[in-house]
């Protein structure tokens, strides 16, 4: 927990310094061509950009620890508020992709384990190798071409059909529509998520399938599996009941790492599908040199990475009988 906190402070310092080293002036992006040097100086003073770097950091850091991330320069709104609106959209997208990737990859791993030493195993292995080589944004473009343009069955952009404007009380639209049993809205949300979720989740599925299959094959060679087989256990039950739990360790660790990569991947994927999430806003923030907003978003991403790591470690402990039942 302490190391997590220290890491987060490190992230804050690095991002703060980096943003001030890279060229680009937020004020230059805001002013109208008719602004006088006095106008510019006033603006700089207003955002504290006339102070020294260290002073700027101290002010910012104090505010951040109090939960105040400042105001976005380009959107003229509170950064915390903006993130609060956008983060849930990204979380819904990322978790949907995580669930899809783990379930799809896990299913493929179980199937290929059951098909080992049959001709079909090679087919699955070949496809798995192929899927491993395709990154998320290539999936996104391929999906847009196929499901958005050639056979336009899915909406190409956004989170919801703009014509329907249901009122939400929380920013977790998917969850909220489900809880309200509003299935029309729910299916509209899902339709908008299918392509970005596939783009983000397919690379994860490929990795999970490969790693889990290797661990499953190793576990299937253990004596306890042999004994269970002699007892008449069906092949599927052998894999699911005997091998799976002992095989998930490496997959869990890797999924944790891949999930952090995937959160990074939402930036480009949200952009491609004009999905109103945090990643999409991050790109605008960078284009506009909106320092407070960039800092806020990067810190939130950093906190997410740390949370994912903690959750992964906790799950690993829970799944290891030696640690869970000392």
């Amino acid at each position: 927990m302490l190391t997590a906190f220290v890491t987060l402070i490190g992230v804050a310092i690095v991002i703060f310094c980096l943003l001030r080293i890279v060229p680009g002036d937020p004020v230059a992006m805001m002013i109208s061509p008719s602004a006088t040097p006095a106008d510019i100086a006033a603006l700089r003073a207003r955002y504290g950009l006339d102070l020294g770097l260290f002073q700027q950091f101290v002010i910012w850091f104090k505010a951040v620890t109090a939960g105040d991330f400042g105001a976005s320069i380009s959107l003229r709104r509170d950064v915390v508020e903006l993130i609060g609106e956008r983060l849930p959209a990204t979380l819904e997208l990322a978790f949907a992709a995580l669930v899809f990737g783990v379930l799809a990859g896990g299913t493929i791993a179980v199937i290929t384990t059951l098909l080992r030493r049959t001709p079909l195993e090679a087919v699955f292995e070949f496809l798995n190798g192929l899927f491993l080589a395709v990154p998320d944004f290539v999936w996104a473009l391929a999906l847009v071409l196929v499901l958005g343009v050639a056979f336009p069955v899915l909406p190409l952009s956004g989170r919801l059909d703009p014509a329907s404007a249901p009122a939400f009380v929380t920013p977790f639209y998917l969850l909220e529509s489900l809880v309200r049993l509003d299935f029309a809205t729910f299916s509209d949300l899902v339709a908008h998520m299918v392509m970005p979720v596939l783009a983000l989740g397919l690379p994860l599925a490929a990795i999970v399938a490969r790693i889990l299959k290797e661990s499953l094959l190793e576990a299937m060679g253990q004596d306890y599996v042999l004994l269970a087989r002699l007892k008449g256990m069906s092949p599927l039950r052998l894999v699911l009941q005997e091998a799976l739990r002992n095989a998930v360790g490496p997959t869990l660790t890797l999924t944790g790492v891949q999930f952090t990569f995937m959160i990074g991947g939402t930036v480009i994927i949200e952009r491609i599908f004009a999905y109103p999430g945090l990643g999409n806003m991050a790109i605008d923030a960078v284009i506009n040199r909106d320092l407070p907003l960039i800092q806020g978003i990067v810190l939130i991403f950093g906190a997410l990475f740390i949370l994912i790591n903690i959750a992964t470690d906790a799950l690993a402990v829970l799944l290891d009988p030696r640690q869970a039942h000392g």
Partner: protein
Amino acid sequence: MTSPLLSIKALSAVSTREAHQPVLRAVSLDLRPGEVHGLVGESGAGKSTIAKAVLGILPRTVKVTGGSVRFEERDLLTLPPRALRDIMGREITLIPQDPQTALNPSRRIEGQLTDGLRLRLGLSAAAARARALALLEEVQIRDPERVLASYPHQLSGGMRQRILIAAAFAPGPKLVVADEPTTALDVTVQKEILRLIRRMQRAHDTAVIFVTHDLGVVAKICDSVTLLYAGKVIEAGTTAAMLERPAHPYTRALIAAGPRYDRPEASLTPVPDAIFRQLRQDIEQTERA
């Protein structure tokens, strides 16, 4: 003379992993109901391969090239898979070598001990649990309730092997195959486990194939014994006859070498090289014939 429970006739096998090197060379042996039969020989002699052939779990890389393995008149080598599955784990069961790897680390003992009873004997969960408790008491485990609720890592190696013995005798098999069941254990625990297997076998009148590299263990537990070298039967007979009047020079040398004949540096009188030369010569001659 009762008819044999298990009858292996001229069983030959090769390893496709090692250029079709013979693994078993026309091995024959008979086992009567309730008899404990030792398979002895140094590492690589083919003991486990015989055990696996009896259990129907030969690795794909071992090919049977001739012979038969008859269990109550059914040839296990040609039986359809379904019929084989009905025998294995019910009429023939296994006590594995290493209690560390033979129990699933992430399942409680209860499930591991009862799912054979439920799958094989069709017992209900409650009946299987009652049977499991009785079995644990029979293998002298104190506090069987607690053991049923335990995970393998919470139990000692000896306890685990007792559980595996209980599991092997659980479905009331006619034959138990024990592949070096004490090799992975401490010497003091070894003795207890040997006695336990002997006691269980007598109580249930179960035949046992007992694989070991230790003639001392054979003397303690086996009624009859087959000595193997490089996949060939060197000598076979009752334990008493073989240990008191060994016919083959290799057998005599092994007895002289003491319990650690498998490790020349630790044995009393190492098996002379001349005997191994003779063994290899004999095997080559029979191969050519």
